[in-house]
């Protein structure tokens, strides 16, 4: 009997095929099928009864209700979940007929969905149909077909330089050709230097071109039906990948390689791979921001770049794999992944192999890996590289141990809390807990102020108050009254934090607690530069996928330090580290005597302060032999210096990525000038472009393009399909995404 029942599937299958009923299950198309249409991608799906037990499928299985013979109506309902695609809000859905029937344990249900007419109208508003079958289960996220199937990340870390290969596998599951568009993040210091498109077995290396030129080549190729791809940079940490003319059933892989340096913080290196762009807020009248819109609502934000987000309860099939090989050069004491489950394999005392768990493959939070190295063996390290451009070095300067012996002077602490909608919920809880701990750690010599901003800014009091127990209690009460809602008018928070008279007797320190989800990054950074004065900025990136470019640059401009407060971090631990840093004076006004090296083009051009626990990475060009250097500066009012012995073996070891890292830093520095000096914009733009082309690097003004002239597809270029992404874990869709 069971065998008989289990063969219901076959009966159902035959019914579908024989009647050519236009059953569409979860393929995303809401176009009616035509009888004459060939089944372009017949997909079957097998679902076992135990998995279905008690579950309900929603929507259609038309003729099965009558043709389904022995199917008894009880609990299980097969459905074709309603799909929304770009602009499909008004699209008429297919005629839906429900069929309910029962499946017993051990039974199977097979359904074959029929493909739709490949020649069906395809435009930006109406997505192509597909033959994919998807079942909807209650309490389980609805799966949405997207043209990005998988992202594979393979990283190799040598010292503190990472070489990372990212492969994006685009796949057309629809039944007419598409152009896939994916807006994705990379680390803001990533020097993207290689780009390869794989079509079938063939690999085509992309060419770096001026952006407009690359866009024109891509558009021409797209219009002529060639498979082509284009990579552009929207922000230093936001990129757009376009792949044109992907035919039904075909897969196009894009491989991107980048180099970047890792951050070192209190004895631990940190490798970060961002996986999703958080929903940005753009001030009114902005058009060149980063829009955040719901899936299918293209153009709603009015911004030049848009990220489409999956609605709550939706999930795309896009997943990510990540593996990392660490060669630290010193003993690794511990490895900790902040947001993901990982498997760590000890290779040697100085090497580890890390793999992301397959069960944690949803790309909705940054991958952050911290590995603690043997602290007493850490030495200032110089690494060099020589090629036909010349010689390059990168050097990590560690603060002298003496700094820890000196206590800080009284402080004027200003806490600026982002209370916008994107911080609503867990992020603001984390930030409040962190500030609360920091406020309670102040002494009566200090003063403090709490400022919050969303669409406007407000603050605890008219001026900073002495950190007495009463005032601290008052501050905590105020802090607890703050919630996340409204826009992210960060400029208001900046003004409130920096536009009031400086208490000369105290060292002003401003700490920003924000996810940084804004689209006008450069406006904020320029305002910060203008208003900074003698203040120091400590930026705290809050949440699972903060805007690290903004956070890093704020700290750099503000001559402070950056820290990240994930939802999985202990805020007390993070703030204790912060307190430790600010408990000792920084070594300021740094200068370096390069000894026998003739050094030029050093970045950062203005050396930041050396803060306890935070080294400074200096990168530049040189001639001569690597030699010991002497770092000078001030500790309070006293001049101080320390020698840095350079290990010849380390220094002369070959490190290919250094030239790219240096060029990337140069470009970032030029771009900072570009946004601050409009009168020199043309000249700076030319220098950025030349540098990027010479080193084959992505920049705002350059792009990678690859065209396969050998493959020419038929007809128009097809439907443009954006890859919708999850809002970062912990971020509320309702308060951040436009619809």
């Amino acid at each position, binding site marked *: 009997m069971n065998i008989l029942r289990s063969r219901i599937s076959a009966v159902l299958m035959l019914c579908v095929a024989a009647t050519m009923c236009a059953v569409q299950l979860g393929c995303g198309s809401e176009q009616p099928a035509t009888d004459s249409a060939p089944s372009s991608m017949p997909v079957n799906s097998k679902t076992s009864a135990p998995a279905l037990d008690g579950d309900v499928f929603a929507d259609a299985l038309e003729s099965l209700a009558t043709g389904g013979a022995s199917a008894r109506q009880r609990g299980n309902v097969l459905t074709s979940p309603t799909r929304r695609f770009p602009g499909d809000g008004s699209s008429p859905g297919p005629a839906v007929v429900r069929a309910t029937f029962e499946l017993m344990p051990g039974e199977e249900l097979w359904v074959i969905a029929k493909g739709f007419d490949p020649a069906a109208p395809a435009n930006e508003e109406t997505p192509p149909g597909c033959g994919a079958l998807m079942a909807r289960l209650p309490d389980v996220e609805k799966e949405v077909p997207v043209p990005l199937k998988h992202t594979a990340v393979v990283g190799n870390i040598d010292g503190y330089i990472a070489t990372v290969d990212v492969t994006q596998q685009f796949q057309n599951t629809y039944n007419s050709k598409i152009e896939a568009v994916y807006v994705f993040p990379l680390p803001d210091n990533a020097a993207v230097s290689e780009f390869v498109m794989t079509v079938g077995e063939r690999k085509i290396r992309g060419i770096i071109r001026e952006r407009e030129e690359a866009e024109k080549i891509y558009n021409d*190729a797209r219009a002529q039906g060639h498979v082509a791809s284009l990579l552009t940079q929207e922000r230093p940490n936001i990129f757009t990948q376009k792949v044109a003319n992907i035919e039904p059933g075909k897969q196009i892989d894009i491989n991107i390689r980048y180099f970047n340096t890792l951050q070192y913080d209190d004895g631990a290196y940190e490798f970060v791979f961002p996986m999703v762009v958080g929903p940005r807020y753009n001030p009114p009248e902005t058009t060149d921001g980063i829009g955040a819109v719901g899936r299918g609502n293209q153009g709603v934000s009015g911004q030049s770049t848009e990220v489409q987000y999956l609605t709550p309860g939706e999930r795309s099939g896009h997943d990510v794999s990540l593996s990392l090989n660490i060669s630290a050069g010193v003993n690794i004491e511990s490895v900790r992944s902040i947001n993901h489950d990982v498997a760590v394999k000890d290779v040697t005392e100085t090497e580890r192999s890390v793999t992301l768990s397959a069960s944690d493959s949803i790309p909705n939070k940054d991958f952050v890996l911290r590995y603690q190295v043997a602290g007493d063996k850490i030495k200032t390290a110089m690494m060099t590289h020589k090629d036909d451009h010349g010689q390059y070095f990168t050097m990590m300067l560690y603060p002298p141990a003496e700094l820890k012996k000196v206590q800080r002077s009284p402080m004027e602490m200003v806490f600026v809390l982002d209370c916008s909608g994107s911080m609503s919920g867990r992020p603001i809880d984390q930030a409040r807990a962190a500030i609360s701990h920091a406020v309670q750690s102040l002494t009566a010599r200090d003063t403090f102020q709490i400022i919050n901003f969303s669409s406007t800014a407000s603050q605890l009091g008219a001026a900073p108050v002495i950190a007495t127990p009463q005032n601290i209690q008052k501050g905590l009460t105020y802090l607890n009254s703050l919630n996340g809602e409204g826009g992210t008018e960060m400029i208001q928070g900046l003004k409130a934090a920096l536009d009031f008279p400086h208490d000369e007797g105290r060292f002003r320190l401003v700490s920003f607690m924000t996810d940084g989800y804004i689209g006008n990054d450069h406006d904020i950074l320029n305002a910060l530069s203008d208003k900074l004065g003698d203040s120091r900025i400590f930026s705290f990136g809050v949440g699972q996928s903060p805007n690290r470019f903004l956070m890093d640059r704020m700290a750099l401009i503000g001559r402070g330090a950056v820290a990240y407060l994930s939802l999985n971090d202990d805020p007390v631990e993070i703030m204790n580290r912060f307190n430790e840093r600010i408990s000792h004076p920084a070594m300021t006004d740094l200068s370096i005597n390069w000894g026998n090296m003739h050094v030029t083009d050093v970045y950062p051009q203005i050396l930041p302060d050396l803060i306890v626990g935070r080294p400074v990475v200096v990168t530049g060009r040189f001639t001569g032999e690597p030699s010991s250097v002497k770092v000078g500066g001030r500790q309070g009012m006293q001049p101080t210096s320390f020698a840095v012995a350079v290990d010849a073996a380390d220094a002369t070891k070959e490190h290919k990525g250094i030239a790219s890292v240096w060029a990337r830093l140069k470009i970032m520095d030029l771009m900072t000038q570009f946004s601050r000096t409009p009168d020199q914009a043309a000249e700076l733009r030319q220098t950025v472009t030349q540098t990027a082309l010479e080193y084959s690097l992505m920049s705002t003004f350059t792009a990678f393009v690859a065209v396969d002239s050998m493959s020419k597809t038929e007809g128009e270029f097809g439907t443009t399909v954006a890859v919708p992404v999850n809002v970062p874990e912990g971020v509320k869709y309702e308060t951040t995404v436009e619809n």
Partner: protein
Amino acid sequence: MNTNELTNTQSCSRRCSRRCHIPLCWALLIAFDVSLMALTYAQDGKAGATEPPVQSVETEIPGPVDVAANVSRFEAIDVFVDSGNQRLAAWQLEVRSTANDVQIVGIEGGEHPAFSEPPYYDKRAMNNNRVIIAAFSTDDNLPSGRSRVARIHVQVRGSGARAWLSELTTSATTDGTRIPAEISITKAAG
């Protein structure tokens, strides 16, 4: 000083001058130069006397007629290296068009598995219509004879043929020995 020797030397010089019309000092200088060249070649070892000269080949790639100047098309140029019966392990070559309406839009690897990965290009030499590419392989299985080592995808505007120049600057075996080889390019069959 032995007067006989002096006499013999002077006599020899005179004889030489008479017979060859080359002064003895010149003859010595030539002999020194030849020795120096031999020494240089010997020091270069494998790259020495057998190093083939760089050859530049001009090829005309046909194009459609009656196409407006602003209308573009995409096509591919196949680059072949013929290393005869030697196994080719490394090569470097330059391909450039004499026309300014040509843009390189992608670089693909060759037909042989040893060179199927897309070759790297010289970033500094990269231009719209010029590229220097190179590759090496440590595989045991290496191509010999005529093999397509790369395919260059280009965008061309307007009608008519385009002239291309190709130069094979390096061709070598696994142990680095330079070997003679010939370069040729053709339009890839679509």
